[in-house]
């Protein structure tokens, strides 16, 4: 793949414009972080793929739209995958086009980065998806500029774009409103997954995932994981490859994930003020920070917030109310005589 690279770094967008203007057909291999490939057909962009964004196959299988075997069988057939799936009735033409267009714009955002990188053009190379739709390189470039601006409007810092992310253990405000997509991301921010990992895991576009993460970062809900945090198992690079496999194999594993991700929640539970006994309540609060264990009672399980104190005596207020009601009824009964 890297046999005939050009020596000097160039802006991939400029190279693409030149190739499109010349009406070329082939694949523009773009190096860099994350890099990717832009496929051209007669000067039109026919497909783009990048390690940072899920491709058509991943979008269709992770969402459960197509079983993994169907996609793999189509990919292994040697025919043009897209038209084949439509011809055999697995997809409608509309679905294929929408999915492909979405994937092209999404991957292009990552491949055609504004930084100079080394590129190589393989003339005549075609993507196995086949002809589905064609995008004008100029339109694509303008849209990417607009998307980059949207991202900065949401949150001007790129600190959540790469590297592992973690959801803050304690909400910065007492009341939160999240969209469904944001919730999905929050529960999977485990201090090891990066934006790319999250996009592949939930089967959503890389750009929209990035946009939601920037919004969450702006709201103070997601931050870059501190560098010393990862538990030795996952240096940022190595965690990536297994994720898409797990996603494409079956969407069924997904429901289990949120629970695993959500488990850190209870640890952040605020210790409730326990009014049972004045002496104990103070110690219970202090036990968390000071670690005082001078009495065994301090280690009793704490009540969870909202749990009613259990005891033989109903609260006195409740009793008074009862008595009053009874007395009123007796009084009105007597008056009626």
């Amino acid at each position, binding site marked *: 793949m890297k046999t005939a690279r050009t020596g000097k770094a160039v802006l991939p967008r400029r190279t693409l414009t030149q190739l499109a203007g010349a009406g070329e057909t082939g694949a523009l291999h773009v190096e860099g972080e994350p890099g990717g490939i832009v496929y051209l057909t007669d000067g039109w962009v026919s497909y783009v793929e990048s390690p940072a964004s899920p491709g058509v196959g991943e979008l269709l299988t992770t969402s459960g739209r197509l079983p993994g075997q169907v996609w793999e069988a189509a990919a292994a057939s040697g025919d043009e995958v897209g038209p084949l799936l439509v011809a055999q009735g697995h997809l*409608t033409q*509309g679905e294929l086009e929408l999915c492909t267009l979405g994937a092209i714009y999404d991957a292009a955002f990552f491949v055609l980065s504004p930084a100079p990188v080394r590129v190589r053009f393989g003339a005549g190379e075609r993507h196995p998806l086949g002809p589905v739709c064609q995008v004008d390189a100029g339109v694509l470039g303008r849209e990417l500029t607009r998307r980059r601006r949207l991202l900065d409007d949401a949150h001007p810092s790129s600190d959540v774009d790469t590297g592992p992310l973690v959801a803050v253990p304690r909400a910065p405000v007492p009341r939160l409103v999240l969209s469904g997509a944001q919730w999905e991301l929050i529960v999977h921010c485990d201090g090891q997954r990066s934006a790319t990992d999250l996009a592949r895991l*939930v089967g959503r576009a890389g750009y929209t995932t990035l946009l939601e993460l920037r919004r969450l970062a702006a709201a103070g809900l997601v931050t870059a994981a501190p560098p010393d945090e990862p538990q030795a198992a996952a240096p940022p690079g190595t965690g990536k490859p297994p994720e898409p496999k797990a996603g494409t194999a079956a969407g069924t594993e997904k429901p289990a994930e949120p629970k695993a991700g959500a488990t850190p929640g209870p640890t952040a539970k605020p210790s409730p003020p326990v009014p049972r006994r004045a002496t104990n309540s103070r110690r219970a609060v202090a036990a968390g920070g000071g670690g005082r264990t001078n009495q065994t009672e301090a280690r009793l399980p704490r009540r969870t917030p909202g749990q009613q104190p259990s005891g033989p005596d109903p609260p006195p207020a409740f009793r008074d109310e009862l008595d009053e009601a009874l007395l009123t009824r007796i009084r009105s009964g007597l008056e009626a005589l």
Partner: protein
Amino acid sequence: MSGIDDCLAQAMAINGAIGASIIDHTTGFAVGAVGRAPTDDPDATWAGTAEIVNVAATGAPFASARPGDRVEDIIITTLDGYHLIQQVHTVFDSRLVLYLWLDRAQGNLAMARRQLRQLADGLAGVPAGSGAAAAPVPSAGR
């Protein structure tokens, strides 16, 4: 004719249609558009449409009152026209809406809404007679 172009052409065939487009409501990008846009700057129109969809879907307290509920369409009525925005519910993640601008004098809102729903479902591969498209039918027949 391709899926997207075909869908837009059928939308323009709806009585009173002035313009139609398919818009990505995350980014405000028009995947496809035909006819006229309400303003001179089509990009601003798509961006504004995206904003309206996002406000309705996530910002409005009535948008998802119950589990499983979701916004199906948004209708804006002006003195001169109707603006219909239908969600395209693809199984995979796409976040698209189908937008139709309808002349108020020539168009029939109820008919157009129904036709647009069928187009959106056809585009998303939802089989006819199931899902969102069928919702009005069972309720009519109780």
